[in-house]
Structures are given as C-alpha cells and as structure tokens.
C-alpha cells in the first residue's frame, strides 16, 4: 500500500514508545494535526463566544453541533478503515458498537436528568411510563460517570470480542462476515426497539439536561464536548498511524492481502483480526459516547442496516487504506447530506445511491487516490 511506503524501517522493540509514536506521522502530518487542534480548541470557541451573532465570522451553535457530529462520524470512519482498509474485513455492524457506546453513556445522561423529567421521578420517564418501580439490574451504577465511561469502552469491546472470536475462529470472512455482522446488528436493533428491554424502546434516550452537573445545552458545555471530540479524533489518528506502521499493522495488512500465506509462515490470523476488530469496536463506542450528548438523542435506528453501510461509504469515498481518507470521506458525505436534506430532500437518496456506485466503479481508491493520481500526473508532466 502506498500509505506504508514512506515509513522509515525502524528496529522494532528497541526504540522508546514515544519516539515510535512520533515517527508514526511525518512532519507535514504533525503540523496539519496541530493546526486542526488549534482550530478546534481555540479559534472556533473564540469565534463562537466572543463574536456577536451578526458577524460573518461568527460560528453558530448549529455549525458547532454539526461539525461535532461529523467529527464523531469521522472517528467511526477511521475505526472502520482500520478493520476494512487495513484488515480487509468489511463490517456492516459498526452501527451496533456506535450505538452501544451511545447507549452506555446515554444511561448516565438519563440519570443526570434526576427529578426534572415530566413525571418528577427518580426513574427515567420511560420507566415510569412502563410502571416500573425500580431500576433494572443493568442500570446499576449508571449514575456514576466513571462507570459510564468504563461501559462505553467495555461493552463494545466485550460484544466484539465474543462475536469476533467465534466468527474468526471458524474463518468466516468476506461477504459472509459482512452479512453475519449485519444480521447481528439487525437483531440488536429489534431487541432495543422492545420497550421491555429497558432502553426506552423506539424513542430511545433524549431530553438530556446535564452532564457532570453542567447544563448540557449551554454554549460552554457544547464547546468542551466539541473540543473533546476533536482531541479524541486527533488522538485516534495518531494511534492508528502508529498501529498500522507497527509490526502488528504489517502482519494485519499481510493477512488482508494473502491470509493463507501468512498462516503458512506461522502466524495465527485469529488474534490479529480479533485485536483490530475489538480496537475498532471500542473506537466506535467512544465516538457514540461523544455523539450522544452533542446531538441529544440516541435511539435504535442508529443500528439500522443503512447506517452501518453508510459508514463504509464514508471510508470508500475518502479512500481505503489511508488514514486521512476516512476523515475526508466522512466530512464530504455528511456535509453533502446536510446540504441535500435541506435543499433537495427528494434527491438525497439518489445522490447517495449514485455515490455508492460511482465510487466502487470509478474511484476504488477514493478521493485520496484521485488526488494522488492528479499529483503524479502533474509531476509526470513537469518532469
């Protein structure tokens, strides 16, 4: 892959971790990352809070929520790229992990409502509605932020580990794996749609009031969440860059390209696939947890087949097997979506459908691949 070609050969295991992380990105990439963080953590907050709404440089609350949401999606897209672009495994179940993270954090947000719900009860409104008298056992500890944060990571990891272990052990791969993950997500969606499951049925969780005691809709809270999402995205990119250039990442890419050969050399693909699968699921869970307080709702439709497959198209549009590609793809597709659904709601699905077809037929390397082609043509012409 072209993404790995620019890496210096490092003596593995000898160089301190910090240096290896530093070596994961080249200087241009580090600068880009710093600019991105400066924009997200300093410029946007200043433009939002300090400037009056009339100013053309004012960043509206709507824009902040939108960009924050898309950054969560970009995080999911990077997670998807790790498993699909580098591992060659197309998951149609990433919506499930995203939703699990979202629900795990949503439970905490529901408890933070306290007695401010419509029924003035200690229980979340939907439980009062179901005439439940106390919290079910799996809501135990949901009032603690720490436990919620732990669940955000542990729940997707556990589900991914159990499912992945059985799937990879019996060497389910290719389309089979995609379809099984889709079925798993579908089953989970049906489960969460039930009122008796205890997660609010088809309304899910909404009407949040506070997070860690701070009002959730206040501009400052929004900006903090926005900044945290930006940091999470940047950290994920660095981590992913380090991961795919490590020995682990190389074995993974080798498995993608020729699994049987890797086995013949003596590696067991199971643990490589399982590790990247669990990492990818955890990243999705974190993205879901950051998404819920910013968007203010989580419901089972996040687990619909369409949502999971859309993640794949973000990655494909940006360019698989590169790390910046998924981010570009997530931003391009979702900005187009917000524009279309406001201006031409009728045509959005036509556009999205065409995008799926055009990208797979004409742009197998995505926008990043197209860009590289243009650059190399220019260089070829000038040389």
């Amino acid at each position, binding site marked *: 892959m072209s993404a790995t070609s620019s890496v210096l050969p490092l003596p593995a295991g000898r160089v301190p971790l910090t240096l290896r992380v530093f070596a994961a990105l080249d200087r241009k990439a580090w600068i880009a990352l710093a600019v991105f963080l400066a924009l997200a953590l300093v410029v946007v907050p200043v433009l939002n809070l300090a400037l009056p709404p009339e100013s053309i440089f004012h960043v509206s609350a709507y824009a902040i929520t939108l960009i924050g949401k898309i950054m969560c999606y970009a995080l999911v897209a990077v997670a998807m790229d790790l498993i699909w672009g580098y591992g060659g495994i197309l998951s149609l179940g990433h919506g499930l992990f995203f939703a699990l993270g979202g629900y795990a954090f949503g439970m905490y947000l529901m408890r933070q409502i306290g007695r401010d719900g419509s029924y003035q009860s200690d229980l979340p409104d939907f439980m009062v509605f179901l005439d439940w008298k106390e919290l079910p056992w799996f809501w135990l500890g949901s009032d603690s932020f720490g436990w919620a944060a732990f669940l955000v990571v542990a729940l997707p990891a556990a589900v991914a580990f159990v*499912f992945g272990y*059985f*799937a990879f052990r019996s060497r389910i791969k290719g*389309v089979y794996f995609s379809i099984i993950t*889709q079925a798993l997500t579908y*089953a989970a969606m049906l489960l969460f749609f039930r009122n008796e499951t205890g997660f609010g049925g088809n309304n899910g969780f909404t009407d949040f009031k506070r997070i860690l005691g701070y009002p959730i809709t206040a501009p400052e809270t929004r900006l903090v969440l926005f900044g945290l999402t930006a940091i999470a995205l940047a950290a994920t990119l660095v981590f992913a860059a380090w991961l795919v250039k490590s020995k682990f990442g190389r074995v993974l890419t080798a498995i993608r390209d020729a699994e049987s050969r890797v086995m013949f050399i003596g590696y067991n693909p199971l643990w490589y696939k399982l590790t990247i699968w669990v990492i990818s699921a955890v990243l999705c869970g974190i993205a879901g947890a950051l998404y819920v307080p910013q968007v203010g709702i989580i419901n089972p439709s996040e687990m619909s087949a369409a949502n999971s*497959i859309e993640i794949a198209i973000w990655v494909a549009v940006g360019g698989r097997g590169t790390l910046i590609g998924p981010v570009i793809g997530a931003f391009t597709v979702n900005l187009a979506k917000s524009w279309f659904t406001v201006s031409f709601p009728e045509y959005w699905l036509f556009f999205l*459908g065409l995008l*799926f077809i055009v*990208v797979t037929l004409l742009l197998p390397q995505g926008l990043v691949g197209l860009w590289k082609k243009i650059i190399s043509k220019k260089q070829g012409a000038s040389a």
Partner: protein
Amino acid sequence: MKKRLLTFLLWATSLGALAAPDPALVRQLAADDNSDKIAAIQQLTAAAEPGTAKLLQAMADDSLYVAGDKLYVYDGEKTVDALNGETAELPDGAETITVNNRLRGELANALAALKLFDADRAVRLAAARELQSQVGAELAGVLAKARDQEQDAEIKSLLALAHAQATLQDADPAVRLAAVNTLAAAASPAVKSLLLPLTEAGGESDEKVRAAASAALKSIERSLAWMDTLAGIFSGLSLGSILLLAALGLAITYGVMGIINMAHGELLMIGAYSAYAMQSLFRAWAPDYVDWYLPAAIPVAFFAAAAVGVLMERTVIRWLYGRTLETLLATWGLSLILIQAARVLFGAQNVEVANPSWMSGGVELLPNLILPWNRVIIIGFALFVLFLVWVLMNKTRLGMFVRAVTQNRAMAGCVGVPTARIDTMAFALGAGIAGLGGVALSQISNVGPDMGQGYIVDSFMVVVVGGVGQLAGAVWAALGLGIFSKLLEGWAGAVIAKIMILVAIIIFIQKRPQGIFALKGRFADQ
C-alpha cells in the same frame, strides 16, 4: 250450527298453523321483567314446537310488537297476530318489545337450539357449531332431544358436547360425571376453562367427578398442545414458503453466480408494486374481472423485475465480478436509488393491495385450526416457483449453461458458451423470481417503498445456511428457518426468537462453514 262449525274449523286450522307455542308463554315474552322474558324464551325453546323459531326470530329482529295483551309480528309489509297466526292490522299504540344484550344472547342461543331441528343438514351443523360455547343449563332438555333425534354422526357428537356443557352444573353427580367424560373428547380452550373449577373441592363436591375432571383436563391440555404445535408448523411452513420465495432468486444470483445483491429486496418490492399496478389497471379498465388481476400480475412482475435486473447487471454488476465487497456496496447504492424511485413514482406511503375474493376465508382443518386460503395458496405458489426454477436449471439449455459457467467459467467459454450473456440471463432470472416473490408478498404484507429492506437479512440467512451453489440447500434452509422460528416464537416471543435463530446460525456456521449442502471437490474452497 253450520256457522259455529265453520268458525271452529277456521280456529282449528289457524291453531294448527301457529298456535303450537303456548299462548301464555308467548304473552310472557312481553313481560316487564327481563327474567320473566328469559324464562318464557327458555320454556318455549325447551318445548321446541314448530313456529317458535319464527316468533323468536321476530323478537330478535325487533319486529315483535305488543298492544295490550295482544302480540303482533310486523315484518314491514304485513302484520300477523302472534297468538293465532291470523293476518291483522297493527294497532296504533303497538310498541316493539325491548331486547337488551342479555336477551339477545338468550335469543341467539334459543334460535340456534331451534335450528337443531331444521330439515337441512347444513343448518343443523351450523347451529350445533354455534352451541359449542356458553351453553346454559336451560338448554339441556332441548339439546338432549335434538341429540337423540339426530342421525348424522358429526352433528350428534357436537350435540353431545353441547349437552355435556349444559349439564355440567346438574344437581345429580352421575349426570355431571357423564358430562365430564363426554367433554374429555373436546379440545378447546373454552371447555378447558369450564372444567378447571370442577377439579377443585370448592367447585365440585363429588370426588369421582373431580377425578374425572382432572383426567379430562389433562387429555384436553395434551390435545391442545398438539394443535398448537400443528398450528406452529403450519405458520412455519407459511413463513418458510415466503422465505423461500424471497431467497430463491438470491440462491441463483448469490448462491450460484456469487453476486452479492443487496438490492434483492428491492426486486421483491418491484414485484409487489407490479401487483399493485395490475390491480389499479384492472380496477380502471376491467372492474368485473378485478379478481383476476393477481394471475395477470405474475408475468408482469417477472418481466418487470427481470428487466430491472438486466439493467443492473449490464450497467453496474458486470464491472465488479470477483470483487464481492465492492458489489455489495454498489448494489446497496442501487437499492437506495430503487427505493427513492418507488417513492417518487408511487408515493412514500404504503399502497393497498387487496386479496382477490377467491383468496379470502380458509379451510378448517380441525376445530380451532383454520388455514387461511392466502397462506395455503402462497405455499402452493412457492412450490410452483421452486419447480419452475428446478426445471429451468436442470432441464433447459440455459440452465445447463448457467451451471457450466458456475463450475468453470474459462472452460465453458472455451467450448462456446457465451458467458457474458449467460451472466445477464441468469441474473435476470434471479431478479424475475424475486419479482414473483414480491407478488406473493403483496398478498400478506404491506406494500411500500422500503418493504424489501425487511427481507434482505432473512433471505441472506437462508442462502448462507443452505450453502452456496445449491438450490436444495435454500429449500431446506427456508423451511427449517421458517418452522424453527415460528415454534420458537410461540415459546419465547418474536424478537427473542429472532435473536436465538441468529445465534443458532452463527453456531451452525462454526460447525458447517459451507452450509447444509456444501459443494465438494475443487470448487469448495474458492
């Protein structure tokens, strides 16, 4: 003297015509108190004289009038004196007899009981069926009489059951015991709840009757469980046939050709909308033959879906052979476009596709077990489509070519099989069969732009479990999954059943990664 004789004769003939019900009892029908009215109805029924049925029917129809101590039956045209059957004028102050719901129930039972003496067997049978629940003790006499008169074995056994229900609260323990023993043969939830109180000391004083009731209850529960299982298997077969129709086309495109077509559900949708379009056409142009829109929709759906299939194959899928994950994404895009196109053409709301009149109703296999005609016909239709596919794949030149291309594309090409055209034809065939499945679906589920989405997971499960490259696998997998999930559904609820099935499939694939019918030989590992 002569005149008196004539009067007497007239009186006698009119008496013979309608005087059989006791006039005192008939007058009591107009009593102020409802209990008196009911007593009169019951006594009239127990006597079961000819003419009673007419009278009670008139009362149930609110056409029995009272004026002073005279009663009249007025049917909108002429008035008849209810006591002597003579034609009369309806007096001005005549009022209809008020019938409340309690009375109506009594009247219905009484009328049914009286129909037991009808000359027509069908009428008697219907009446006996109606008297299978909520039979009061007051009907015991008339039921016994009817049972003893009855010649037909089926009606006789029904009457015996009804009589047993009526005598269940009899004062004589021996009669109760006989009733319980008779009821042991019945298998209905209503009888079960009737017998339940008799198994307890509070509801039944006699020990023998209690024991008999417990035994009867057990046997009823056993046969009820059997019927539940039977009903479960039937609805499983029905679900299985739907899964089969949805999955058969996929078994060709994915199972045989290896194309993963996420737009398969939308081909079903096209079939269903073809049925809707044909229905609209027939309603507009040939309203007299509207019941025939369904047979007409079958070829239309096949060719409409096949045409879309050809278009899909030629423009998109052709370029992605061998790249299954890309095919998956591209066909997903196609499905989005088709869904939106259906929304633009037919609107986002579900459209109404009515069953033709010959498909409504059902066959009663057992009491309490009715098989709806539309389900039965869909099972038959699935078998027909299956047969068609089998013939096409195994007995025609096209089928042979398809199998040859599946087994070895290069070799088939070398011996002159036009592989590219065969790909198109086979894909069109799979799409057309999906269209046929859509016609069947239009008869039992909602027809809307995103109806196909619900079937895509299930139909892929069928193909995955059945094994790639085989039609037999798809058949067994569809029926197995259908029956299995319906039986589980009865036991654990629909959602839990679905999840259990899915877990079972994942475990099953552990053991048999290639499905039930794995291809053997050198193609198995491709």
